[in-house]
């Protein structure tokens, strides 16, 4: 046996993870037990009403999510991608944004959409199958959901390059997950953002799982450390700590607005539910792991802190519970009342300017449809649900 071979035999197997979570560099301001802790770089001095506001966001976002999951189980949505467990990562980063900032989401950023003021019903349209999104991205500076993994990080970077050209004091928040960090587009986005010094914050929610593939299948080093190789800072934050996420994202966005270029924020969190309602995580992960993350719940720790410090009373929690139920009812009713698109809507909005082929096919299909005797079902399909 040669020395080289002996050396290889002692090297760790390729599947052995070199690191796990709970590393000391994780920025945390509120422990899972609800204790405020200090961090040398990131302070949290938000007023009590803002803290209650964050708690309200977390609760309402989870309520929307659970209602959507129920709607899917009842056949009203084709699929739903739950954000369960990632509420703090989304609310903390979403609330860090200024009005003129712009978010580019994946398909799971329901909490960010909420913070931007996007009606949850807009999100349901895509999952119900009545449209592919359909909201005006520029109304709330919240781009359409992007399904192809990582593609939106380039759009975010280009948008940030445009902000830079405009001399705007704004920044872009680009969302993606741990699986997306393996995509070429995400790596290209890092490079473009770096060399053009674009005002974009890359916000990676590392929820540990890309459908069935654990983080070890995507990386051999902590994801935030990747930033160094691209020439900008990376920071890992407790993604279940809304105060820490808010502080870290605010600082990164401000840094970008001031012309100091991109930052990679790795929000270390956990996907408590399935990848989507079509997934079955019991086939690939252990219950013990899920149980350990339940102890780090992003909402419970804020409630514990609010209660212990007397920053919120029972009336606040009661009122919020009522509000959550009302919001869920709005989501449910709105979903059930959402009209199916008419068949000829297939031909709408393909092009901005007139396109003869699309128009011709629209006319031919309309003429074909008219050859049928009107029935109740056809009238319903054309006119609504």
């Amino acid at each position, binding site marked *: 046996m040669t020395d080289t071979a002996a050396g290889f035999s002692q090297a760790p197997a390729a599947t052995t993870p070199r690191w796990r979570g709970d590393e000391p560099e994780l920025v945390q301001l509120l422990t899972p037990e609800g204790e405020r802790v200090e961090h040398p770089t990131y302070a949290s001095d938000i007023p009590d009403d803002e803290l209650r506001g964050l708690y309200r966001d977390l609760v309402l976002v989870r309520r929307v999510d659970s209602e959507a999951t129920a709607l899917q189980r009842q056949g009203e949505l084709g699929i739903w991608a739950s954000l369960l467990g990632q509420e703090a990562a989304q609310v903390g980063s979403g609330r860090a944004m200024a009005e003129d900032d712009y978010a580019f989401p994946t398909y799971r950023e329901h909490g960010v959409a909420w913070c931007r003021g996007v009606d949850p019903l807009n999100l349901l349209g895509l999952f119900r199958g009545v449209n592919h999104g359909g909201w005006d991205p520029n109304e709330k500076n919240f781009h359409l959901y992007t399904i192809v993994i990582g593609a939106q990080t*380039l759009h975010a970077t280009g948008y940030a390059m445009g*902000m830079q050209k405009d001399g705007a004091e704004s920044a872009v928040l680009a969302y993606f997950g741990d699986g997306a960090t393996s995509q070429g587009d995400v790596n290209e986005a890092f490079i473009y953002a770096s060399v053009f010094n674009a005002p974009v914050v890359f916000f990676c929610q590392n929820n540990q799982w890309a459908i069935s593939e654990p983080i070890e299948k995507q990386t051999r080093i902590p994801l935030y450390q990747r930033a160094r190789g691209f020439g900008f800072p990376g920071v890992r934050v407790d993604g279940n700590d809304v105060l820490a996420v808010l502080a870290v994202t605010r600082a990164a966005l401000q840094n970008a607005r001031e012309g100091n270029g991109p930052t990679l924020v790795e929000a270390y969190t956990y996907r408590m539910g399935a990848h989507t309602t079509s997934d079955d995580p019991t086939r690939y992960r252990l219950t013990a792991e899920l149980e350990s993350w339940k102890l780090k719940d992003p909402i419970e720790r804020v409630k514990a802190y609010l209660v212990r410090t007397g920053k919120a009373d029972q009336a606040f929690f009661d009122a919020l519970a009522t509000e959550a139920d009302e919001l869920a009812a709005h989501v449910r009713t709105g979903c059930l009342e959402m009209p199916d698109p008419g068949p000829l809507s297939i031909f709408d909005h393909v*092009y901005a300017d007139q396109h003869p082929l699309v128009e011709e096919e629209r006319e031919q299909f309309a003429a074909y449809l008219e050859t049928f005797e009107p029935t109740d079902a056809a009238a319903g399909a054309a006119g609504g649900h």
Partner: protein
Amino acid sequence: MTTITLAKGVNMGLRAAMEADPKVLVMGEDVGKLGGVFRVTDGLQKDFGEDRVIDTPLAESGIIGTAIGLALRGYRPVCEIQFDGFVYPAFDQIVSQLAKMRARALGKISLPVVVRIPVGGGIGAVEHHSESNEAYFAHTAGLRVVACSNPVDAYFMTQQAIASDDPVILYEPKRRYWEKADLDESLTLEQAAPLHSARVLREGTDATVIAYGPMVKTAMDAATAAAEEGRELEVVDLRSMSPLDTETIEASARKTGRVVVVHEAPGFLGMGAELAARLTERCFFSLEAPVLRVTGFDTPYPPSRVEEEYLPDLDRILDAVDRSLSY
């Protein structure tokens, strides 16, 4: 009148668009100081600055992806893909993102992005530098796909593509970059032929030859040769692959009753197949012969020492015309 090359026509078109609208950007690999590998963007960075003529990192998906973001911010990016065979790394960004985003937003946004692609063979290049991939993009709803064949069209079509609120793939026949023609600069954009119109370049009665991009000159040469044998070929420069100017090509098919489609791209599921199907559906009783195709072969583009065998030439076009006339 000014005599210009096709490359200069694109260059002048870019310059005119950039002068008219400060939101127009040029971006791509080596488009700055070098002026592009074909010198199409020559002098633009010097005059418009690095902020508007952007040398990008060497990553095509990144070029198109960031152009989409810039377009969402209100810019009109013109992206150069250095060679046809290098567009594939950007395929998802073009086909799934650029083409479909407007429909996903129910028309609430537009993406005025132009993707310029030097296309086709005949320059003795190494592999991946001679491809004709228009069918992929013409097959994709949401894109407009055009090809210029001469310096004057290059000048106007570049500006028209930039003015479009839809994404446009603009093919430039790289082996014709140095072809010359006279440009009347007093003509305005409004006086030019519409972007999506086909043009009858030569009238004839015996058969119609439809070509686009680099094959237009070959088709015109074939028509000249045929005339010496007493055959009058009508040559149509298709110019737009999506949408098609069906009115012009149908009129020509009805007039001559015989159609030969010529392109460098492989024949299987190419533009010729679509044109043959469409003309058969619409002009069946006017046709004297099946629509024939003269195309590149259904093989990888060959090494350059045999590319002249692969590329349709004058003789193969005339052979197809003979076959058409034999029906």
